[in-house]
């Protein structure tokens, strides 16, 4: 009997009336002012605006002018536990998630030690049961120590609740090794989530190879480092009839490779990060280490292809690849800095400000792509539906704020959007029926 995939810390089921909210759930075609009653953590009633009364013991929240959305799902975060708690831990990471409107996250196994064995996964899940502000699903490693040489005990990891498998941070460089993992997937199930990079092409590069890297004299990573591996692994998945998910696509040629694989009926899916959708290698010109990410920020034409891929469904979902690093680790010359940016607290607002407000995509599509990740890992997509557990986020789309100005919930501050003026502020997040985040200035009307 397999363990449940998502683990939530101690929480108190909420009972509240969200009065006169603008309910917006693209999956159910909801786009209207409503009252939403949450009872004991469950969506109990959805009624016309200003028709429900808060009974005793129910918190009353005035939602006028605010949007109530299904909460977001992030299939790709780094919570740095165990071993790198100076960057993040399960509590701070899930606090950051809640502050960004996410009601569940999937944590990567490139921890120290690597989450590559049953006992480690078990102890991580025990920690999560004490600390997780929103439910966490854990991935197991594909190969022991992420070394790319031996498979982990994938079946045991699955039985203990591993959502899937990944060597994220590293590619599975050997085609033979990935083929064995795909074959083994027939026994254990679980999506193989792939960080695509050909080390013989990336060769220790620090940024995208192109005009900017040529100008800066910084070793570049060619975009074919990613896209040739996407194509290779789609072919392997087809051969083994496996199921793979491509992480953090960064360039046009990868989008094309995923589209081709999908057209061939291969079971693949793909994600993209807010930073790859909104930034390009031009943002690296100043050698700000917050812009150093893996895969690197690519060219403007790549960014446009990613947006198009998100729009046409080639890319299934948004994932933040939230990758916290301590200040002293990032306060070094660019080439020495570790790769990664935090992203949970800014994902929605950054995408809303830079893609939805200018009319590049609509809110409907953004909300779909920020919630769809769950389905890719065989988890239910959060639904605003009577009888379902409440996984909701209340957002003031008009609120303007400066990213990072009031600090971060994350333990780290290496956010590529820091200092940007953003629109759209999460006021409240209900995860698995419990209040996981409440914006400080957002107060209760009555209890």
């Amino acid at each position: 009997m397999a363990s449940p995939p998502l683990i939530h810390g101690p929480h108190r089921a909420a009972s509240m009336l969200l009065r006169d909210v603008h309910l917006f759930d693209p999956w159910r075609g909801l786009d209207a002012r409503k009252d939403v009653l949450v009872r004991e953590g469950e969506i109990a009633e959805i009624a016309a605006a200003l028709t429900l009364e808060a009974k005793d013991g129910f918190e009353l929240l005035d939602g006028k002018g605010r949007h109530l959305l299904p909460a977001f799902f992030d299939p790709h975060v780094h919570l740095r536990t165990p071993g790198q708690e100076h960057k993040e831990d399960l509590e701070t990471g899930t606090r950051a998630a809640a502050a960004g409107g996410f009601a569940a996250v999937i944590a990567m196994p490139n921890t120290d030690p690597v989450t590559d064995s049953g006992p480690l996964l078990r102890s991580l899940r025990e920690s999560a049961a004490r600390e997780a502000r929103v439910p966490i699903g854990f991935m197991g490693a594909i190969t022991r120590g992420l070394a790319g040489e031996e498979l982990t005990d994938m079946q045991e990891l699955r039985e203990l609740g591993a959502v899937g498998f990944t060597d994220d941070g590293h590619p599975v460089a050997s085609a033979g090794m990935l083929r064995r993992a795909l074959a083994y997937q027939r026994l254990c199930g679980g999506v193989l989530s792939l960080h695509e990079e050909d080390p013989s092409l990336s060769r220790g590069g620090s940024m995208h190879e192109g005009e900017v890297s040529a100008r800066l004299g910084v070793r570049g990573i060619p975009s074919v480092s990613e896209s040739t591996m996407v194509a290779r692994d789609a072919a392997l998945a087809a051969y083994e009839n496996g199921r793979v998910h491509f992480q953090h696509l960064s360039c046009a040629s990868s989008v094309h490779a995923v589209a081709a694989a999908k057209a061939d009926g291969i079971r693949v899916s793909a994600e993209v990060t807010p930073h790859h959708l909104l930034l390009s290698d031009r943002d690296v010109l100043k050698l700000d280490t917050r812009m150093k990410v893996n895969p690197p920020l690519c060219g403007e034409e790549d960014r446009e292809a990613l947006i198009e891929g998100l729009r046409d469904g080639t890319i299934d979902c948004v994932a933040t690849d939230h990758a916290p690093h301590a200040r002293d680790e990032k306060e070094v010359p660019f080439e020495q800095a570790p790769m990664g940016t935090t992203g949970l607290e800014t994902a929605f607002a950054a995408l809303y400000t830079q893609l939805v407000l200018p009319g590049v995509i609509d809110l409907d599509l953004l909300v779909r792509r920020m919630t769809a990740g769950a389905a890719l890992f065989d988890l239910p997509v959060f639904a605003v539906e009577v009888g379902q557990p409440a996984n909701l986020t209340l957002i003031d789309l008009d609120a303007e704020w400066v990213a990072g100005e009031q600090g971060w919930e994350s333990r780290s501050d290496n956010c590529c959007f820091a200092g940007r003026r953003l629109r759209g502020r999460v006021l409240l997040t209900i995860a698995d029926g419990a209040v996981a985040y409440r914006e400080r200035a957002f107060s209760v009307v009555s209890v």
Partner: protein
Amino acid sequence: MNHLLSIEDLDRAAIERIVEQAERFAEVSDREIKKVPTLRGRMVLNLFYEASTRTRSSFEIAAKRLSADVVNFASSGSSVEKGESLKDTVLTLSAHKPDAIVLRTPWAGAAELISRWCSAAVVNAGDGKHEHPTQALLDVYTLRRHLGEISGASIWIVGDITHSRVARSNILAFQKMGAKVTVAGPPTLIPRGIEALGCEVRYSLEEITGADVVYALRMQRERMIESSLPSLREYVACYQINARRLSARQVLMHPGPVNRGIELSGEVIDSPRALITAQVEAGVVVRMAVLYELLAGTPERNPSQAPEPQLA
């Protein structure tokens, strides 16, 4: 000017101002006593994270000719080897209140980075493969002396462009001075996208006869190890500047140290067309001009210090 971080930051007027100041300092170098009191009481700190003999000593001589005090700090055998970060090293050394820090590191952007951490004027003496602005300035100085006018000249930079900070600074500096720059070398050692800097790219030396100036770069042996080149022999055959390729009307430059018999043949090094020793000589006066530009006439960087009496 507060710092010298890159050629990219400079306009033609600033380059000319420094070069013309260097011409005035050239006269000092010919004196019996090669010293002026201009920067007396000022401190120049050489902070070098990479082995360097000529650049470091050139800065040291330049500072001493201006009567500044010089402290040399090399990363080997220092706190850096004990794991001290660049930031902590700079903060620690800043406690000695240097007026200028001359920094060489293997990391792009490091000079710009430390300029935010200290009040000293920062001089970039090479940041990774990014820039080496004083080399470009001394090359402009040398060329001006030999050609009279750089504007309109055709300059070919030949060799490993990918790994050369000298190439990047010189492409920019020569173009700012009005020259037309072509880079040439093995396709594996010319970075994709370098045309964005405004230069032309050639993979063979067939058209090098059209150049007024041939600027050869040092070919490092480690490029063979990472197999960016099939062999040195093949490099020599395709790209060595030798008497066959260099005509009498062309001048030859090289940032040093040269690999005699590899990127340059012995006969061209020893020929009158080579400006290589003139470049070394120019290094001191140009760096004097840079230190002068940054420190002379500006208020003390550390107002807490008692002002030094000014001696003319």
